[in-house]
């Protein structure tokens, strides 16, 4: 059985330095895996959370726990304020090539459901392209749309609509566990 050193990040370090997703070994427990390939295998720092993902991706103190990118009405450009966030995810995915992400595009409730599905797809696709430009491999990313079907905010006003014009990044670990 082969032991792989798993990159780990202490949450304190993360909080102090949120733009540095590259991990250091903080002496956290190391998970032993059997049958792993020679590629980089991820992350167990302080254990996995319920989704089976490294804490680094789910700890609220980690920038990588921020998974939502918001869009303007009828727009699908990734706004400048999200460039750092996208870069952080790109860096994580480039370093951890066994991880995959599903980008789910969403829209507000107004208009045709099928047209909104395509609009949500365009938003997800914009995030996917941003990640790809930063070096993430195509086979690590799938962009899909939920259209208006899964509103985060069920309200019917401008506040709710703004919250629902969104793309979310969901992670899946190499062992298949994760958020999708």
């Amino acid at each position, binding site marked *: 059985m082969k032991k792989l050193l798993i990159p780990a990040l202490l949450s304190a370090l993360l909080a102090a330095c949120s733009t540095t997703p590259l991990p250091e070994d903080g002496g956290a427990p190391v998970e032993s895996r059997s049958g792993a390939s020679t590629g980089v295998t991820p992350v167990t720092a302080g254990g996995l959370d319920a989704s089976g993902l490294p804490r680094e991706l789910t700890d609220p103190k980690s920038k990588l726990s921020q998974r939502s990118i918001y869009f303007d009405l009828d727009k699908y450009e990734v706004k400048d304020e999200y460039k750092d966030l996208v870069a952080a995810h790109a860096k994580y995915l480039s370093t951890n090539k066994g991880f995959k992400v*599903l980008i*789910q595009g969403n829209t507000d409730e*107004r*208009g*045709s*459901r*099928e*047209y909104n*599905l*395509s*609009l*949500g*797809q*365009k938003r997800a*696709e914009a995030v996917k392209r941003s990640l790809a430009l930063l070096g993430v491999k195509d086979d690590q990313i*799938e*962009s*899909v*749309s*939920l*259209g208006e*079907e*899964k509103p985060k905010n069920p309200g*019917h006003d401008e506040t709710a609509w703004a919250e629902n014009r969104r793309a979310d990044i*969901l992670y899946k670990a190499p062992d298949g566990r994760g958020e*999708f």
Partner: protein
Amino acid sequence: MSRLSRRAFLAVALFSAGLAQAQLSIEITGAGANRIPVAIVDFPGDPAASRVITATVRSDLERSGLFKLVDHGGLAFDENAPINHADWKARGADAMAAGSIGRSADGRMEARFRLYDSQKGVSLGGAAYVTSNTQLRAAGHRIADYIYEKLTGEKGVFSTRIAYVVKSRGQFLLQIADSDGQNAATALTSAEPIISPAWSPDGSKLAYVSFEKKKPVIYVHSLASGQRIIVANFKGSNSAPAWSPDGRKLAIVLSKDGNSQLYTVNADGSGLQRITQSSGIDTEPRYAADGGSIYFTSDRGGSPQIYQVGAGGGEARRVTFEGSYNVSPRPSPDGKSLAFITRREGRFQLAVMDLASRQVQVLSDSNKDESPSFAPNSRMILIATEIGGRGVLSAVSSDGRIKQRLTVAAGDVREPAWGPYYQ
């Protein structure tokens, strides 16, 4: 213009226990200007069965907005009884129907009837329908279809079914009901959204988009067996299935190469072919009635508009020009008109274009119309809309005069699809 002041509520009992309560009721909110006065007398025979069948015929005819029921005075005549036509003419009837309920040789129910022209005092014909005891309403619908066709010259749609999605208590139910909202059955229950149900031309299957795999995937679902096959589960989103008129192909929307684009695929998922090549959104395909072309929505011109392309691809032609948001094209089965949703001053409304003159008429006065669906006789259009923050279905005649509303007591109802003629 006369309006039906009486509000007819038909409560519906759902067949199945254990599922979320989802009762569909129909309210008539408008009727045609020149309704045909017709009398349906009671049918002698099994009294319980007679009541079900005649009540079904009467409510079908009245709900259509094209007929006015003439009081039959509690009279009962069978289909061979001598009829005093002058008497029915005097009661104001243009037509009257009489019939009987008997047992066929194999023990099932047999409903016989005859329709008369009260003005001319002649028979317009009759028929007999054999049915099981649990299908009495179906016999009523067949009789109503017969009367409708004889008196209007168009085929009736009372024996058709509708599909729709109910969202209730966090669950999504794909339901099938008779065109009067009764007899609802749940074909699929899911914790994730179901959208865009589309009937196969033979009425045996539904194609739809289900999000049960955390992304939109297209299924074809055989209603009788419950068997489901995945028709499209490519990388990205798979959506907006539409059957070709011969039932062999589906036009679908895939984003596997980036943005949403139109493709066609055989009904078993084989033979994928790309139809459009644009840098924007192409979605909501619908075959024209002759199968030769496909209407769809595209933002290639800067705003969502309706276009038409050959069923095998080629150059697309723009169809809508008024306004900045025209979506959800639905060509009528008779090939004469195109229903769609238009945004006017922030309101999403049902509109119909006459394909010969290109004239557009807005048919509704609501704010949130979606997903139009023609009845197979092209006379009525079913839409999803919202009243008091809740999803309801509404049926509007293609001239805008007749309106019906279908609501579900315990939830939101949306994504209606009117099925084909009874086969």
